[in-house]
Structures are given as structure tokens and as C-alpha cells.
């Protein structure tokens, strides 16, 4: 019984069968590390070590090592935090929202995208801890009984909401990802021997693939997807409220939640695109991550990039239309003030560059997709920098106007997160199945282009 859609191209090419899926994906896990992997790992570890030195020194000496001043109290730290959290959102979008919409092309990329989510959120959490200055007091952000007469945290504060949002998001993402990994670990376990069999046996939690367990597994996946969908939207909404609930001109806007969520998906898909384009070549997974997948992601990048563009224009329009002089000044300062170059970078990278994807030929061009995915992430970094820094640098008192200049330690801590992210991702790509084997096998019959009937 072969059901092939006459309209849609197959999601898995090369006439793969279920056993081929197992072999192709397990090959990476079972083989010796390749030279490319070792070199990449070496670079990541060096970056991580350098970053760890900077982060350690920062904690030892204090936040004075950063370039912050009394006018610009938030800069690279919160820029990087929002940037990493935003990147994380694509993983949940792919695995949860696309699951609810029954988008089957997600099966080839959801595993790696979710892994990216977890590592990106951990990087974001690094900046939360770093910007506290005294990370050993991080638990003060939680409503714990204390000796100050039980002085509780301020639940009216968006920063406290953020503590709950980020920690829920991180742990739920880890659990969602891990539950999906269990059946694939069982597949690897059954192929392994010796110590590897014990390790993958433990990781697989003794999964045997009973019909009853699969039935429960499906129920868990569906409910977790249903929970993660509003969760992921709430997380970036709350991140945007860190700004929107303040009274700083440029931050105090109701457009922030949808604008931030669209931007998060935009940058996240760009990061997935960057990672997938490398992974499919290095691991020879072109039959699983096909041009169709890349085109689909480019379509989402085009859509969300355009939403972000409209949000930028709307902000400007509202600043003029509201008649609020401070709001107007902030936006003129943003576009034509001392940070005009950051604004120009943001506009050209985020609004103009994705417009190339209106053309099918360009959407399916690998080199252009790769370059634009990086351009988009540079642009999204500038977006957060523009929102944070240009709203602060020229405040209400001209005598306190200032500029922000990053120091060695601003750059170093940012490097730390890059080292951490790529170290984790490389470990994942080597020792975990990068593609969800069980889910890909479910679509192999209907969408592999395998004409041979069983």
C-alpha cells in the first residue's frame, strides 16, 4: 500500500527504507570522531576556556570590568541574553507548533533544533547569572523563606516573571527533547556492545517499543507540544515585558510582545538554518534534510522577517503619531543619533536581506541561504542592541548622555557562550542521534518517494 502525494515532493529522498534510516543516523554515533569534528571541537574548547577565564575574572573582580556606565546600565549583557533566548525559540516552534499543525517536514530537523534550543537557553541563562554580579546570590530571585522577616520577591516585576518563565522553558524543553530521544537511544543500544550498550541502555531508560508505551508516548508528545506552544510564546512575551513594563521611552510600548516573538522565531530559524546546512554536508544527510526543508525554513524566515520589518515601521509611526516628545526624540536618536550605524545594520540585515527569499531560485540556493542565515543573526543581535542601548544612551538629562564601549570582558563573556554552545552542540552531534529516527520512519512510507511497494 503505497500512498504518495501527487503534489508534494517527498520529504526523504534517495529511496530510503526504515533500515537505511537506522544505519544512516547511527553511523555518526558509532563511528570514530572525524578530523573535522576534532578540529571544530578543539576550536570550541579553546573559545570556551578563554571565555571561562573572562567570566571567572568578571565574577571575581565585579561588574566594573564591563563597559557599563551610569547612563547605560544594560548593554551587551541583556542584548546577548535576549539574542540567545530568541534563538532558542525556533527549536520549540519546530517541535511543538509544527507538530500541532501536523507539518511532517519537521521530523528531520526537530531533534537538532531542540538541542539548539536547550544550549541557547543555557547561554542566555549565563548572562542572567553574569549580569547579577554576585551569582552566588542568584537564589534571591526566588520566593524563598529568609531571615529578613520573610521579605518576599516582588511578583509585580517582569524580572521575577522572567525567572519563572526561563526556568520553566529550560526544564520543559529538556524533558520534551529527552522523551523524544528515548526510543532512538533504544535503537542505538540494540546495535551496541560492551560499555556502550550499558551507557545507551541507561540513556534509553529500558525502552522496548511496546505498543502500549508508544500509545502513552504519543499522548505525552501531544500534550507537551500543546503546553510548549503557549509556553514559548509566553517566554518571549515576558522577556519583552522586561522592557515594556518600564517607563523608558523606546521600551514602553505595547507592540513589544508580538514583535519580540516574531523576531525570536526569525533569528531562531536562521540559526537552525546555519547549523543544518553544516550538519547535512558534514554528516552526508542530504537525503533527510533536503532542499524542501531548507526552502520551508527560508519561507518562515521571510515571513517573520517581514513581520519584524512592519514592527520597526509601526514603532516609528507611533512615535510620530502619539505626539509624545520623548518618544519622538528617542526614535530620531535611534535612526540618526550616534548609533545610526547599528540601526542601519539592523534595518538592512533584518528587513532588506530576507526579501531575497521571495524568489524560489534564491530560497533553494544553499550558499545564499547560509550567508543570509548568518546575516539575519547579526541583524537580530543589532536589533536588541539598538532597542537596549539607543533607548538609554541619551536620557532625560543631556549632561549624562553617554556612549557604550565594550571592554575585553564584554567580548570575553560573549565568547564564552559561543564556546559553550558549540561544545555542547558538537557533543550532541557526535554522541546523540541528530535526526529523530523513529519519527522519520513514520513518514518513510508516505513521503520517501520509494516507489517499490512493500
Amino acid at each position, binding site marked *: *500500500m503505497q500512498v504518495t502525494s501527487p503534489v508534494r515532493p517527498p520529504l526523504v529522498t534517495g529511496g530510503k527504507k*526504515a*533500515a537505511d534510516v*537506522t544505519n544512516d543516523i547511527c553511523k555518526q554515533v558509532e563511528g570514530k570522531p572525524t578530523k573535522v569534528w576534532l578540529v571544530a571541537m578543539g576550536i570550541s574548547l579553546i573559545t570556551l576556556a578563554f571565555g571561562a577565564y573572562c567570566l571567572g575574572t568578571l565574577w571575581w573582580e565585579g561588574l566594573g570590568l564591563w563597559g557599563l556606565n551610569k547612563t547605560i546600565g544594560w548593554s551587551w549583557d541583556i542584548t546577548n541574553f535576549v539574542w540567545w533566548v530568541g534563538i532558542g525559540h525556533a527549536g520549540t516552534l519546530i517541535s511543538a507548533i509544527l507538530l500541532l499543525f501536523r507539518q511532517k517536514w519537521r521530523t528531520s530537523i526537530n531533534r537538532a533544533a531542540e538541542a539548539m534550543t536547550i544550549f541557547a537557553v543555557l547561554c542566555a541563562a549565563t548572562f542572567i547569572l553574569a549580569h547579577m554580579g554576585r551569582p552566588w546570590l542568584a537564589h534571591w530571585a526566588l*520566593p524563598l523563606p529568609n531571615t529578613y*522577616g*520573610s*521579605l*518576599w520577591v*516582588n*511578583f*509585580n516585576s*517582569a524580572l*521575577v516573571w522572567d525567572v*519563572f*518563565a526561563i526556568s*520553566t522553558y529550560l*526544564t*520543559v524543553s529538556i524533558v520534551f527533547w529527552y*522523551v523524544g530521544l528515548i*526510543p532512538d537511544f*533504544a*535503537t542505538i*543500544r*540494540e546495535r551496541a556492545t560492551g560499555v556502550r550498550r550499558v551507557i545507551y*541502555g*541507561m*540513556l534509553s*531508560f*529500558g*525502552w*522496548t*517499543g*511496546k*505498543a*502500549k*508505551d*508508544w*500509545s*502513552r*508516548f*504519543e*499522548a*505525552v508528545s*501531544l*500534550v*507537551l507540544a500543546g*503546553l*510548549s506552544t*503557549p*509556553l514559548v510564546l*509566553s517566554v518571549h512575551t515576558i522577556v519583552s*515585558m522586561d522592557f515594556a513594563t518600564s517607563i523608558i521611552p523606546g521600551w514602553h510600548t505595547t507592540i513589544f510582545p508580538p514583535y519580540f516573538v516574531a523576531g525570536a522565531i526569525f533569528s531562531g530559524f536562521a540559526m537552525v538554518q546555519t547549523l543544518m546546512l553544516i550538519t547535512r554536508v558534514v554528516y552526508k544527510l542530504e537525503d533527510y534534510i533536503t532542499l524542501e526543508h531548507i526552502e520551508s525554513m527560508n519561507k518562515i524566515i521571510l515571513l517573520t522577517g517581514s513581520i519584524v520589518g512592519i514592527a520597526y515601521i509601526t514603532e516609528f509611526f507611533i512615535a510620530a503619531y502619539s505626539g509624545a516628545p520623548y518618544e519622538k526624540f528617542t526614535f530620531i536618536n535611534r535612526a540618526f543619533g550616534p548609533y545610526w550605524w547599528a540601526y542601519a545594520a539592523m534595518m538592512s540585515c533584518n528587513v532588506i536581506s530576507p526579501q531575497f527569499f521571495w524568489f524560489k531560485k534564491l530560497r533553494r540556493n544553499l550558499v545564499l541561504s547560509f550567508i543570509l542565515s548568518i546575516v539575519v543573526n547579526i541583524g537580530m543581535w543589532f536589533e536588541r542592541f539598538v532597542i537596549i542601548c539607543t533607548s538609554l544612551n541619551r536620557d532625560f538629562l543631556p549632561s549624562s548622555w553617554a556612549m557604550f564601549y565594550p571592554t575585553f570582558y564584554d567580548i570575553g563573556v560573549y565568547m564564552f557562550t559561543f564556546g559553550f554552545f558549540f561544545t555542547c552542540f558538537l557533543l550532541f552531534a557526535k554522541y546523540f542521534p541528530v535526526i529523530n*529516527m*523513529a*519519527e522519520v*520512519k*513514520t513518514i518513510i*512510507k508516505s513521503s520517501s518517494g520509494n516507489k517499490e511497494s*512493500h
Partner: protein
Amino acid sequence: MEKGKNFILGVFDDEDILLEGVHKVRKAGVNIHEVYTPFPVHGLDTALGYKYSNLPVASFIYGMIGTISALSTMIWMLGFDWPMDIGGKGHIPLPDFIPITFEFTVLLAAHGMVLTFFIVSNLWPWNYKPKMFDPRSTDDKFVMAIDLAKNTNIKIEELEKILKDSGAVEVNKKDMN
């Protein structure tokens, strides 16, 4: 024959044939011990007569516990234990409590459900050596296990024939001692 230790395995290589096979085997009056598949096969649970899992209900209850505990804790802390005037918002500003209530609801619903799933399916790291009828059922084969002790009214030869007729590509015996 030791009780519950001997099985006949029907190995299928296609999910649609397996689904039809399950219907046929059950129609012939055979008690199926369990079916092992490498990926979720839609309709297999109903074909085997399993009820839909109650895990979503459990998740809802955990979520409700989260909603109630988060909301009541915040109301007690800021409203009664240490009332403070923060920005003139009043002591129990309910709209401000919505984000944390929502997050805590999701937190408990998700983790509670997954933990319950691990408990009812007995999935734990220390079960690292599970008994597998056929390791190929984690790769590309579908394995229907039939417990001989529960089908004493049917002869073994007859069982093998039923499985073959239902589309099994192999029929094996397995001693699970």
C-alpha cells in the same frame, strides 16, 4: 512448558500489514501478549483493544495543582504575609500574577505528566538491560509476541499458521527464560 516463559513471535515488515494482521489474529481468538514496533503505528493501540491513555487527564490535574498553588502562594505572600505598596497597584494585583501562575501551571503539568509516564511504563535508567523479544523491533521490524501459556486452547502449529496467514514474514519461537 514453564508458564509465561514461552512465546511465539510473528515478525512483520510493514505497518499496514501489521495492523491488518493484528485484526486477523485477534479475530481468530488468539490472545496477543504485546506488539513491539520501531515507531508509533497509528491505530495499533485501538486495534489491540487498548484504551486511550489517561495521562492527559493526569497532566490536567497536575496543571490545576500548579495554578492553585502558585496563585494562592502569591496572594498569601504579597497580600497577607508582607503587604507592600508597589507602584500603587494594591496588595493583590491579580493581572500581575497571571504570568507566574501560567508558567507554574505548565511546569507542573509537563513534569508531572512525564514523571507519571515513566512510572506507569517503568522507564528508568537502571532498567538498562530490558528483555527484548527481537532486537530488530527497534530497527525496521514489527514483532507480535504471543504468550503460549495464555493460548493453551490453540495448537502451536495452528498459531504459526494464523500468523503466516496474517502477513508475518517470519514466525519464531522464543524462550524468555
